[in-house]
């Protein structure tokens, strides 16, 4: 055993020096970091403020649009304020001083009425004052979110009295960004212009006026509400405007038909929430939340990690074995250690290389998630929670080790009979092909984690580690859990024994690699 450990130590030390190892070590954390950080950065920085001009000579729709945009902004402020409170203020306790009503924490920004309450109470200023006493010492000041859409005035060289058609022509250079408009004295690019014709009322399309025989002529485009923009890829402002205008038109329609404004508002604030429930969950806690989504999909990420980890260390094992064989170091080694010790040492050394890599990945995963979970994204917080509370990491460790050992048995057999990497390539092509299956089924299994595909694949030892990892959070039947594990264990032990025999014979051979059948004969001899 001492010699196996010596071999293992060399394998580890030498592999830890290779470029591939360090690349593997850092690539995953880097990708993870970027995939978490880049969307946040893009959200914060890269989406520019959209400056727009709203021309509504009749002032018929402008107030409604402005109000809607303001509401959208206030919703952002409320969300940011709650996030700020969550991070920087002590939580409200039920027993302590009487709960203020309304308290910031009770307001749901998705609820229209809550939003109105927020605005009516005085918005940001009022609620900042409310949480002020609870703020942790040293908490940073609250930063208002940026207004994504900002209205600017018509440039002075454009006659506001001119007709919409000529105004549109005059605005074109600004919209093409050949000319800049001014916002708070700073020249900025104009993103959009919304032109509302004074007779927009006539353009409203009503069901009863649209008879199939003689419908109204489609309005000429210069009489419609016009949304001018050179940027077609960011439709958010257009959608906001469209929503605001249509809500306003409908409100007026209700009024015109004799409905009470207060009633209309109440109707508008009426909604029914839908809750997703999972029958497998504990009674009373069946509600499906973001954490459950994460729980369902997180295993797929682990399957991918498992696959990459096993594939990486397999490559290392293969190239090491072939190096020793091709330059005949193997003979010196075999005059010092038994083939069994050599194989054990190699298996162990590379396993530790793999575990180091996987450990670094897990550390990075936890590190990045815990660093980010306090902040920008709720999803990351949930992912972190799932990671901490589920058995994903221990399951991953078990299946990594067993999967590695099983695949290593194949690799050692291949490596021991091939003199060059080139010779090994045809064997490896088959291995890679076999290993593609879990990658391809990875995204299907979470949709039906205990379905026939998942169960069948679980019982094929080659795919047990990947498939069972994939089903890790789906509570597979006990028979699957234990049965496949026992089968995998038995297969791994069997494969290693056979690999040991092939290794002993193959490692000293020179010349053409043997046929697979011949290798099987070696493996089964005695």
């Amino acid at each position: 055993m001492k010699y196996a450990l010596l071999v293992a130590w060399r394998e580890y030390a030498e592999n830890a020096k290779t470029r591939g190892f360090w690349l593997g070590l850092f690539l995953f954390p880097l990708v993870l970091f970027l995939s978490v950080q880049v969307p946040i950065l893009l959200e914060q920085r890269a989406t520019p403020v959209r400056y727009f001009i709203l021309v509504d000579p009749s002032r018929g729709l402008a107030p409604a649009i402005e109000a809607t945009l303001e509401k959208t902004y206030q919703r952002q402020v409320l969300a940011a304020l709650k996030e700020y409170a969550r991070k920087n203020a002590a939580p409200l306790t039920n027993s302590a001083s009487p709960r203020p009503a309304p308290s910031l924490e009770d307001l749901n920004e998705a609820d229209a009425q809550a939003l109105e309450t927020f605005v009516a109470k005085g918005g940001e200023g009022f609620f900042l004052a409310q949480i002020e006493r609870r703020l942790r010492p040293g908490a940073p000041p609250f930063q208002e979110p940026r207004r994504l859409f900002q209205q600017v005035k018509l440039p002075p060289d454009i006659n506001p009295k001119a007709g919409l058609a000529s105004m549109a022509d005059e605005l074109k250079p600004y919209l093409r960004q050949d000319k800049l408009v001014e916002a708070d004295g700073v020249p900025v690019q104009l993103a959009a212009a919304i032109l509302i014709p004074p007779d927009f009322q006539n353009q409203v399309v009503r069901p009863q006026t649209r008879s199939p025989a003689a419908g109204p002529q489609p309005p000429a485009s210069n009489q419609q509400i016009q949304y001018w923009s050179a940027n077609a890829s960011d439709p958010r402002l257009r959608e906001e405007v469209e929503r605001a205008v249509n809500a306003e038109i409908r409100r007026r329609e209700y009024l015109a038909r004799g409905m009470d404004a207060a009633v209309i508002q109440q109707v508008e604030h009426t909604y029914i929430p839908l809750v997703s429930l999972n029958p497998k969950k504990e009674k009373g806690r069946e509600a499906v939340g973001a954490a459950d989504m994460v729980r369902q999909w997180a295993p797929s990420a682990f399957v991918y990690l498992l696959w990459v980890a096993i594939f990486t260390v397999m490559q290392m094992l293969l190239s090491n074995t072939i190096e020793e064989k091709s330059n005949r170091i193997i003979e010196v080694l075999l005059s010092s250690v038994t083939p069994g010790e050599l194989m054990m040492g190699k298996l162990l050394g590379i396993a530790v290389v793999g575990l180091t890599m996987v450990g670094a990945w897990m550390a990075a995963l936890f590190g990045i998630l815990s660093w980010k979970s306090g902040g920008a994204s709720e999803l990351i917080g949930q992912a972190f929670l799932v990671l901490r509370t589920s058995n994903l990491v221990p399951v991953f460790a078990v299946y990594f080790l067993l999967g590695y050992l099983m695949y290593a048995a194949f690799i050692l057999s291949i490596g021991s009979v091939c003199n060059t990497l080139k010779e090994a390539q045809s064997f490896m092509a088959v291995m890679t092909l076999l290993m593609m299956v879990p990658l391809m089924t990875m995204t299907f299994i979470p949709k039906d984690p205990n379905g026939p595909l998942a169960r069948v694949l679980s019982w094929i030892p080659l795919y047990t580690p990947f498939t069972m990892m994939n089903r890790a959070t789906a509570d597979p039947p006990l028979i699957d859990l234990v049965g496949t594990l026992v089968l995998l264990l038995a297969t791994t032990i069997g494969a290693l024994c056979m690999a040991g025999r092939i290794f002993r014979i193959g490692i000293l051979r020179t010349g053409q690699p043997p046929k697979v059948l011949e290798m099987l004969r070696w493996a089964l001899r005695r």
Partner: protein
Amino acid sequence: MGAAATLELRNVTKFFGQFKAVEDVSFSLGSGSICGFLGPNGAGKTTTIRMILEILKPNSGTITVLGRRSALEVRHRLGYLPEEKGLYKKMKAWAIIAYFATLKGMTRKAAKRRAFELLERYGLKDFAEKPTDALSKGMGQKVQILASIAHDPELVILDEPFSGLDPVNQQVMEDLIRDLARRNRTVLFSTHVMEQAERLCQRILLIAKGRLIFDGSMAEAKRTVPRRVRLETEDDIAPLRGLAEVSAVRPAPRANGELDGPEQPGPRAVPARSTPPRANGQVDGPEQGSRRWELELRGDSDAQVILQTCFGRGIRLKSFNQSEPTLHEVFMRLVGPEAKEGAGHE
């Protein structure tokens, strides 16, 4: 020979499938000797060596190494340099030597110290920290040789230690082997270079087609080839043919440089036509009418008898030369015909 033998093979046979690689080989080595393991390509040398080291298992027969039936039990006391040389490309020279020494039971610390010590002694001090793929082939081979003896083994088995070394390093290698023997270590080495074997070995093992065809001292080996006398004369040599000491007489080839002219024992002697008159008073070089003859002597016969007969019967000698056979001749005579067949599985 019994328990004292460092290495003993008894009726060792090894098959590869139907092919009989080694057949019924028996020999035994005492300690402190240098033994040359000779034979043509594919004769079974490497297979025998691998069996001694228990890398391969014989089909039948027994091998006793340092008193044990298993080389693995005494692997710490064995050193081995395989025929095909190779090193881990990315490892540093000292680290490789130290690694193999630790596999032979040395502590990591002692192994490292020993590695640097050896590299310094054999002129590779400056390359100790270099990865081995930065070394020349010869240097790499030296590193490998040092790796095989770093743990100061009692039995050192070197398969083709001289191949790939320049003359200077061949000399270093020879010194190293002699040094091992001087410290009572046993060295078994295979080689195709007869001069080296001749200079180094006290003992010769000759193997051909898997069979051990000679086992004995260097002197015994040379005795397998009749000693020869070459002479040059214009006179009739009929009286010499009748001598009991002479087993064969034949004309010596003239054009062939190897047999033409006087020879001294050993391969270093390159005959020079213009050398001054020799001790026997003869001027060399063929003259008109003179012929060269080669006489083979029977057994331990004294070449003086021929000289006396020549004087007695009035045969005027232009040259007379008595030579020891070289190991090369021994080799050619014992395995020459078989070596030409060249079939090889080793």
